[in-house]
């Protein structure tokens, strides 16, 4: 009896909290099924990525199954202009759940957040980099 007196308000509070914080609903990827069952992916995607990262970096294995690039290829959305939206933007596939669970991703400090698309301002001309670094004497020594 005393237990229920303590538990009941807690239950009600948690129900209220749950009502206020909607469950994340990340946009669906292309295709019917991800590379692993959904519950496995939810729990273990970071382990797959970490494993694949070393396989690719050090052993040159570029299988597509657990590749981060392939995640992007299926899971990035396009905006009205037909341009890809960053996968870590609010509401997008990665960020939707990571915001909900309060887990920060480091992947995209270096990795691309969209499949390759022409970027405005990607410089073709880099004449300023053509300065000499070697002198001929050093070079021919």
């Amino acid at each position, binding site marked *: 009896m005393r237990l229920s007196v303590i538990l009941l308000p807690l239950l009600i509070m948690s129900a209220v909290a749950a009502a206020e914080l909607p469950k994340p609903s990340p946009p669906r990827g292309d295709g019917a099924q991800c590379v692993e069952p959904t519950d496995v992916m939810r729990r273990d995607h970071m382990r797959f990525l970490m494993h694949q990262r070393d396989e690719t970096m050090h052993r040159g294995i570029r299988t597509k199954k657990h590749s981060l690039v392939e995640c*992007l290829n299926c899971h990035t959305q396009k905006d009205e202009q037909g341009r890809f939206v960053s996968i870590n933007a609010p509401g997008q596939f990665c960020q939707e759940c990571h915001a909900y669970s309060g887990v920060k991703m480091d992947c995209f400090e270096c990795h691309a957040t969209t499949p390759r698309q022409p970027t405005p301002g990607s410089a073709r001309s880099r*004449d300023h980099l*053509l300065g000499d670094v070697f002198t001929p004497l050093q070079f021919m020594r």
Partner: protein
Amino acid sequence: MPSSNQNSQINESRRKWVGGAGAAAAVLTLAPGVRLLELAAARSEEEPVSGKVRWGMLVDTTKCAQGCTECVDACNDEHGLIGMGRPLTDAQYIRKLDLKDKLTGKTYSLPVMCQHCETPPCVDVCPTGASFRRADGIVLVDKHICIGCRYCMMACPYKARSFVHEDLTNQVPETPRGKGTVESCNFCVHRVDRDRDPACVEACAQAGHKALVFGDLNDASSAVSQQMAELPSRQIREDLGLNTGVRYHGV
């Protein structure tokens, strides 16, 4: 009395001779028809890289056109290298050099990039193991491990490496790049792993110069090996004995 430099050269050639003799003996003792060193076949996707292959490049400076920057532009496009307007620190994987022999007035134009040494000084000095040489001879930075100390940049005799100083966005999928890590030419490893030539080689051929030849140095039938057998070639700073994967003809 020989200088220490001469000494090391003597030892090196001796070591090579001894090693070569050992390998020859190993081949001889095998049963007829069984070869110790199999020629590298095209690698399947699941198969790791192996030391059977050594990737390398020959730069024919007699074909390299002065003022042409096709290789540099292609590299920047391929890897998404965008200048920050700071030439001293902007990332460059490959750069063009114009050299002039003061005595004769002859000018040379050539690209310089990571030379993919067999014994890379950048790997020697790396405190974390981020700078490493892949089994097939490509020297890379594992940016997951790189702490940005830049010892490798100091150690590299070719000034091949760059450091990322700024927060970056819009990287390309094949070349992750981020602030606080060192980077350099990776022979377009993502292409090489899929049996394609590096972007600079492709661009040079498309521009009609064909000054860059890429391939497996261990495979005598590859284009690069055949060219190297035909043309005299040199390493930059060959005195360092690094056995570079990039060789130059005509300098």
